[in-house]
């Protein structure tokens, strides 16, 4: 069967075909849709694998590893930042190896198209000592995911499957049977403390040796299966030139080499351990090599060290000699540049065509409860005469960080999941005059915000933490999290209550507000800012989009033109995208786009002229 699917979906369907019995992960662009696809599959199919959005990537990985140790095939998915969170356990599990096939899907984002660092997760393979595959297209992602499970079982190691955004988010035709082939293995886990514990240096060092043996074996296995494509044009009287490329760039290289038949190529998808036979073959055949890989010179370092060991005298062009960039996504521009350098052509001057005139700031959706919380916070600062440029508000990952953008302009920092609370403690301890406020979303709080809150409680820090609880992991596409309403979670899931967690931690100052009740919210935040010690406010109101999809909208607001003075206070305070400018009888007025308005009424609280009111029953906006 042929279907047009994305790289992420390809990973999901391949894992189903490989017979996984468990899949876990934490959402994060550009990896999310892999697990989403399995969730969708499991909702409507029986048999289907167990699948869950876990609390964070470390937990997700441990769950998958547990299932794999019991002999099952398991998939775990995460974005590169999540791999950092899971790393502690990944390194340790690598020492023990696996029994059932265990595939760790990590997605990198060269060019940071979705924000967050341009991290190169291929380094994790070197660091943990695990085989790594880097598929070049959705079709190859399908093939290599299936292969990764076999490889994992053959060498008894977890296998890292790494994709970049350009593969994860590209759709193409993939031929597969799109079915689940459950292996239904009998679970079995034998006690073996020499393999599965780390107590004692003898155990650890032995495990390390075993890991290195398995890693070497995986090199041989991948060599036998010819994962990499090597194409040598031997016997050319001209000096031999070769291009080595990695992952997604293999196809761009193909495109450019199609008009340069004399140049040899080695297209890598088995990145680690690097196939030394492939590289040696290329070196013997060439006087000049250019290496194309996005982000870090991972392949380049391995090739250079091999070349120097062989006393090879040719030229290697890459990042370490400064020819190719270590930042951004590669396009044919970088590849042409490298090949020009390889052919010894004159360097062409780069002509910049930067024309960006206006960049849309991303903002809270119309009706987003977070807007209400930040508007209330801004009102409190004004009321207490606290200078905005002195009052630090640490931000966190997820929709809540949109409070950094105008006209809200609240958040100062964004680092990593849960970091708003730890950073706030440090900033408060540094003795800043103004109060320090941390803002964090619900899923982010569950993920990594609890330990720093415990720390703050223990050390009696002087911070206000506002948890913006909208009940969903919204930024990545409305996944459930532990705090999602129980009836909306499905399965046997139970809801975990943030309020109970905060109380159990021992935070005495806790208030719960509804961000759409502005007066109460302003009052509560105002009091909390002036109090001392650790204070927590939970701003609780469901994500506007999930609520809208489920329940539709009851009321909308409209602006009565005759009362609107075009002072634009509504826009200045809220920046709501449902607000627009209209010209009526030559007079400019603010107006509300009825298609977007969800009826939160926040704009009405900004208007001193009573111009904004709920629309009448016909729902007509102005």
């Amino acid at each position, binding site marked *: 069967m042929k279907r047009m699917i994305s790289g992420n979906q390809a990973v999901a369907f391949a894992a189903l075909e490989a017979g996984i019995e468990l899949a876990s992960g934490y959402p994060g662009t550009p990896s999310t849709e892999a697990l989403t696809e399995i969730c969708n599959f499991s909702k409507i199919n029986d048999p289907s694998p167990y699948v869950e959005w876990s609390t964070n990537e470390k937990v997700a990985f441990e769950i998958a590893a547990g299932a794999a140790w019991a002999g099952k095939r398991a998939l775990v998915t995460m974005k590169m930042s999540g791999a950092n969170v899971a790393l502690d356990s990944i390194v340790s599990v690598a020492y023990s190896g696996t029994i059932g096939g265990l595939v760790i899907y990590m997605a990198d984002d060269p060019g940071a198209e979705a924000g967050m660092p341009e991290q190169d997760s291929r380094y994790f393979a070197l660091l943990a000592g695990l085989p790594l595959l880097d598929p070049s297209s959705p079709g190859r992602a399908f093939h290599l995911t299936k292969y990764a499970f076999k490889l994992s079982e053959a060498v008894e190691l977890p296998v890292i499957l790494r994709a970049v955004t350009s593969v994860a988010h590209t759709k*193409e035709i993939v031929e597969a049977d799109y079915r689940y082939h459950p292996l239904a293995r009998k679970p079995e886990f034998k006690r073996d403390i020499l393999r599965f514990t780390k107590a004692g240096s003898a155990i650890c060092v032995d495990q390390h040796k075993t890991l290195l043996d398995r890693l070497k074996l995986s090199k041989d296995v991948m060599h036998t299966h010819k994962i990499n494509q090597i194409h040598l044009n031997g016997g050319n009287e001209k000096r031999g030139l070769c291009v080595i490329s990695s992952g997604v760039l293999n196809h761009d290289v193909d495109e450019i080499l199609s008009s340069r038949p004399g140049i040899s190529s080695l297209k890598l998808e088995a990145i680690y351990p690097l196939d030394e036979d492939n590289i040696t073959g290329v070196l013997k055949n060439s006087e000049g090599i250019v290496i194309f890989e996005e982000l870090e010179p991972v392949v380049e370092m391995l090739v250079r060290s091999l070349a120097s060991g062989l006393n090879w005298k040719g030229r290697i062009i890459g990042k370490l000699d400064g020819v190719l960039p270590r930042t951004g996504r590669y396009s044919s*521009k970088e590849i042409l540049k490298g090949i020009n350098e390889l052919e010894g052509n004159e360097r062409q001057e780069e002509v910049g065509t930067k*024309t960006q005139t206006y960049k*849309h*700031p*991303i*903002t809270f959706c119309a009706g987003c409860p977070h807007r209400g919380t930040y508007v209330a916070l801004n009102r409190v600062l004004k009321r207490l005469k606290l200078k905005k440029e002195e009052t630090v508000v640490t931000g966190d990952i997820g929709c809540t960080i949109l409070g950094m953008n*105008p*006209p809200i302009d609240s958040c100062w920092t964004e680092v990593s999941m849960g970091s708003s609370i730890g950073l706030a403690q440090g900033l408060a301890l540094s003795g800043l005059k103004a109060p320090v406020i941390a803002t964090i979303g619900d899923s982010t709080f569950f993920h990594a915000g609890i330990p720093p809150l415990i720390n703050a409680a223990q050390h009696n820090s002087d911070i206000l933490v506002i948890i913006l609880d909208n009940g969903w992991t919204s930024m990545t596409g409305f996944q459930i999290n532990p705090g999602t309403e129980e009836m909306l979670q499905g399965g046997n899931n139970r809801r975990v209550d943030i309020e109970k967690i905060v109380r159990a931690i021992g935070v005495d100052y806790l208030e719960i507000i509804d961000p759409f009740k502005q007066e109460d919210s302003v009052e509560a935040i105002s009091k909390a800012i002036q109090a001392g010690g650790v204070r927590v406010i939970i701003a609780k109101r469901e994500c506007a989009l999930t609520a809208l999809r489920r329940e539709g909208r009851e009321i909308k607001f409209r602006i009565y033109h005759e009362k609107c003075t075009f002072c634009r206070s509504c826009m200045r305070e809220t920046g709501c995208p449902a607000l627009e*400018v209209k010209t009526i009888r030559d007079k400019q007025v603010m107006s509300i786009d009825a298609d977007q308005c969800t009826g939160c009424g926040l704009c009405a609280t900004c208007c001193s002229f009573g111009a904004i009111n709920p629309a009448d029953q016909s729902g007509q906006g102005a």
Partner: protein
Amino acid sequence: MSENLFVTGVGGQGTITLCNLIAEHASDHGFRTSFFQSRGMAHRGGRVTGEIRIAENEDESFGPRISQDGADILIGMEIAELINSYSYLKEGGIVIIVNYSYIPSEVILKKKEFPSLQQAVELFSKKTKQIYSAVEQVNPVNLFTLGLFSAVKSSFKVESDIFSCISLEKTIMNKMKRNKEENIKAFRLGYEYGKKTKEIF
């Protein structure tokens, strides 16, 4: 050789749906097609782009992304994002402009300037004479744009043109699950508009 189509808009316009229709249509007609979608900011008024590459030869190998100066056709459903995509247009390529501006608060509050349709046209005139602009627009704008695209494509008699009005209508009927009539109507209006005005600057 592939034909490269770069589509851009802002969240809420249905940019990805438009791209999906074009890509699946080309793929169903036996062309090797890839479609890269930028996503994630769709609900939040951010930039949305789609990069579609179509080749007649099913075995053709090409990467998923369109390079700078690589787009044969650039479709802009929003003026600022169209201008932000300028570098992708090939010298002499086709530009299809929907005159819509998504104006955020900072512009309404006069803290920043927003580019006009005229500025966009002046800019693109440096690269091409093939600029099609729809001054009006009909909702849903993505289907309206698909109609424009079909009209422009047929007027150019591009080789292996599979994007005729009739053929695309079939695809819309097959692929769109909801609001079929509304979608077909917008598509036809876009097509008629594209046929009639053919406004080339």
